[in-house]
């Protein structure tokens, strides 16, 4: 298969694993794929491919902007984990809520926020989704029901449950998804929340994006159990472990949990296997992973797998897919330009949004 269209982060060779009986490559689980074609339809699947590719190109661009010193502070790239966000957003309705942490670019884009608004936020510009005052770790868009964007590990989980509580309180028939990482699962407040979510049967889905590392700490050095899905057993909560590198498996796995939340108002803990191709943040060389491990993972780049599946399934030709990439790259460039040109917030904004009214003199 041609190298030129494969996502920058991924090697050109196909994943070593996953051979068909006839010895050729099995890109994605055939059963889920067939189901997806029936339930979602090919065009929707193509859209999902496009949004994954958009996330990828968007963050590659953000990474370059960071290296050029145009984006500062922390910048936690989502590259490699795209199927999770896209599958999740696809499993949700517009009225549903999403809460993320600091690795939130992909989630924000998946929930419908524009590349312009997110890129401008990374630039700290006034047209950013948080008017440039939040930054990479604090993306918000109330109109898209995207509620951040959190810097304190685990702190977003009670918030997610609280939003679910409110949705239930007001009979909104809305589901809330709260994302956390494999390192964040150990925080006490996460466990406090699990108990209340189950006790009060809140319509919430907790998604562990298990990329096997918390900064430099591999899962097994931080967790006394290998399988994080068992965390749910302590609360009698439904749970599942899902392959987050296969967009279709991810979609159906998340969909089931979302339906449980919407239909039965019951929480679910999902342990989704995924992998980040980049370091923890832009400043992390990620030496704690072997070159082999990284290469093997990148060989199974989920975007490349879907791309190859699309081509082999004759849903789109390679040329069409290359065309997408050209478009998307142009789109991302436009977002960059938008961010570059967007003004910084006016200095008057410095004193706004602390309280609804800050007329009183505190200083």
């Amino acid at each position, binding site marked *: 298969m041609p190298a030129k269209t494969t996502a920058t982060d991924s090697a050109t060779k196909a994943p070593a694993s996953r051979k068909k009986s006839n010895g050729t490559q099995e890109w994605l689980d055939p059963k889920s794929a067939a189901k997806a074609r029936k339930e979602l339809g090919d065009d929707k699947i193509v859209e999902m491919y496009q949004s994954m590719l958009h996330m990828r190109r968007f963050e590659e661009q953000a990474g370059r902007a960071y290296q050029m010193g145009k984006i500062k502070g922390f910048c936690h790239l989502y590259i490699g984990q795209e199927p999770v966000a896209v599958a999740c957003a696809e499993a949700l309705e517009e009225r549903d809520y999403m809460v993320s942490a600091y690795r939130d670019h992909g989630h924000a884009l998946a929930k419908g926020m524009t590349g312009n608004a997110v890129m401008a936020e990374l630039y700290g510009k006034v047209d950013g989704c948080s008017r440039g005052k*939040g930054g990479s770790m604090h993306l918000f868009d109330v109109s898209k029901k995207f509620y*951040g964007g959190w810097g304190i590990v685990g702190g977003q989980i009670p918030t997610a449950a609280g939003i679910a*509580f409110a949705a239930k309180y007001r009979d909104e028939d809305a589901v809330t998804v709260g994302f956390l990482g494999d390192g964040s699962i150990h925080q006490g407040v996460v466990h406090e929340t699990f108990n209340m979510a189950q006790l009060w049967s809140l319509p919430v889905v907790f998604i562990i994006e298990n990329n096997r590392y918390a900064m430099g700490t591999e899962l097994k050095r931080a967790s006394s159990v290998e399988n994080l899905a068992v965390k749910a057993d302590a609360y009698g909560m439904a749970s599942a472990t899902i392959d987050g590198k296969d967009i279709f498996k991810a979609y159906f796995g998340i969909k089931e949990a979302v339906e449980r939340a919407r239909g039965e108002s019951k929480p679910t803990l999902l342990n989704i296997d995924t992998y980040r191709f980049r370091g923890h943040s832009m400043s992390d060389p990620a030496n704690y992973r072997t070159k082999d491990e990284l290469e093997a993972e990148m060989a199974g780049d989920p975007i490349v797998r879907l791309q190859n599946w699309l081509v082999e399934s004759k849903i789109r030709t390679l040329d069409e897919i290359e065309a997408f990439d050209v478009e998307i790259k142009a789109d991302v460039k436009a977002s960059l330009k938008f961010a570059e040109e967007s003004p910084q917030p006016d200095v008057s904004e410095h004193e706004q949004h602390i309280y609804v009214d800050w007329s009183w003199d505190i200083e």
Partner: protein
Amino acid sequence: MRKLAYRQALNEALAEELARDEDVFLMGEEVAEYNGAYKVSVGLLDKFGPKRVIDTPITEAGFAGIGIGAAMVGLKPVVEMMTFNFAVLALDQIMNTAAKMRYMSGGQLSCPIVIRGPGGAAGHLGAQHSQSLEQQYVHIPGLKVVMPSTPYDAKGLLKSAIRDPDPVVFIESELMYGWEGEVPEEEYLIPIGKADVKREGTDCTILTWSRMVHVALAAAETLAEQGISVEVVDLRSLRPLDKDAIRASVKKTNRAVVIEEAWGWASMGASVADFVSRDLFDFLDAPVGRLHQREIPMPYAYNLEPLNMPNEERVIEAVKRACYVD
């Protein structure tokens, strides 16, 4: 006018606001079926049912966070902390989520939550259960902090706090729950950010809040007999602070003593005293006086415990020192 206990006044405020606004709910340990550890929520479960009055497990960070999340999408939670000694477990949620949401979201979000419960020493409960920790909240931009000293203030301020679009930390006093005071039948609100002169005087201003207001008033009474006229200003709201009320009083008396139940370093009292010393430098005839808890964990022993606390006698000394008397 009818008299109500401090806890009854709070109970009325909660009942009225629960009745007034469907989005208001009360959540905390033992608030529902047990009617509240200190009986502030008596009868509310019966009146408003389990959807609006909710018992929680003993997980302060978790249920504070759930309340905050609910507030972020427009509900108006009142989260009871059984005491503020335990609220420190939820401090991250309060200071990093509730206080910062509006700013970090560029004004998209607000967090109209009230975190309330008793603070201060209770009596013979030892070091972990007898702390005055308002400084943990007063320090944080984005939070408002209210500490009423009378049933009247408690009711009017709690109603305002519940209607406030920003997060309010509302600290009551365990020892005052049973204390009675006049509360009118008809509805009223007291704006957050306004101090109240609880006693007028001309020789020295006492700046204080919560239970210490009553210690100050008792001292003022005694001092009056000795010919020293003390003005007692109840700050009521610590953030925002009513600087004008402080200025007005100290410009009149030219002397100030700040009294607080908390420890004295990096405390609200230190801030108030510092404000007076700098802002009113040219009006002060004496150094600002301060009285606070000794820099010692609260001892359990019944003879040592009182030694840790400001009391009438010490207030009298402090005022006299500020007035250069004796």
